[in-house]
């Protein structure tokens, strides 16, 4: 007999964790995509205050 019997609860927990993981991965990809889209925009410019602080 295994130490932990597989239960429907474990499947549900795994499904929730997998779902959350996929959502977080998607979020990271989206933020990355937004960054690329913003810096590729013709109107993009480094804020003046950051240029001066360099």
């Amino acid at each position, binding site marked *: *007999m295994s*130490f*932990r*019997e597989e*239960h*429907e*609860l474990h499947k*549900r*927990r795994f*499904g*929730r964790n*997998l*779902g*959350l993981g996929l959502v977080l991965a998607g979020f990271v990809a*989206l933020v990355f*995509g*937004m960054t*690329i*889209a*913003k810096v*590729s*925009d013709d109107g993009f410019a480094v804020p003046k205050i950051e240029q001066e602080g360099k």
Partner: protein
Amino acid sequence: MSDASLNTASPVSRAQEGEAGFGDFFALLKPRVMTLVVFTALVGLLAAPVGVHPVIGFAAILFIAVGGGAAGALNMWWESDIDALMKRTQKRPIPAGKVTRDEAFAFGITLAVMSVVMLWLATNALAAGILAFTIFFYVVIYTIGLKRWTPQNIVIGGAAGAFPPMIGWAAATGTVSLESVLMFALIFMWTPPHFWALALFMRGDYDTAGVPMLTVTHGRRATRVHILVYTVLLAALAIGAAFTGIGGPVYLVVALVFNALFLRDAIAIWRRDEDQAEADNYRVEKRAFKLSLWYLFAHFTAILAEAALGGLGLGGWA
């Protein structure tokens, strides 16, 4: 601790009650309402005269949808007591015992804040500000404040559902204009006859929960009159919008057809009494409710079609 103690039924049973699956949290976002939010916000974004980068547009729609879903979760958090009493809402995650009220509150607040901040970063402060106001309006003004106190709850609540196209437009343009206000007004005026038709044939649910729906406070005759009045006003607005920046010949044809059908049903509802309605199991009221769903979809699709034709130099009246 022994194996036996880990495998006893009681801890698992307790955990089963307290542990929601991924789908239960997703259900808190009211996915069916979210489809309307996504669609109308998308039309607002695409109908705007300013182009948006596809990734930014996708992000904007996603965060508007998440914000709408967060408002839905907070609505379920506050209304779990009456949700448990109504047949239509008894299977929602909180009354069904799948998610606790505290979990729903934490989930809703987190997503609400995150969606507003992310929409601001993705687009602009105005769009994020309107989204924040929409969530506040729906949860605090409507759900907590007015829903249980006034029979005009549907009219007021309708405003919250009317903001998404305005947010989509603001995300693209950074402004609020006549066109976006018209899209807001279209949903705002559409909501009362849509929900009152539902309230007529879902009789009993709102009485049980003690929600002061017009059908309960002013009677079913008054509700039938209200449906007709709002539908007449809606038709004037919807057809009038054909001659503004979001309209054109395609929109006009769609508006004429669907408003004629909706008016026909509203007049039929107004002319009937309860005996007639009960005799055919609310056939006309149910038909009007179904038609109202197609009505909104058709109008916003027509606005989108006009915008697409405009891109080809064929849209509008020019």
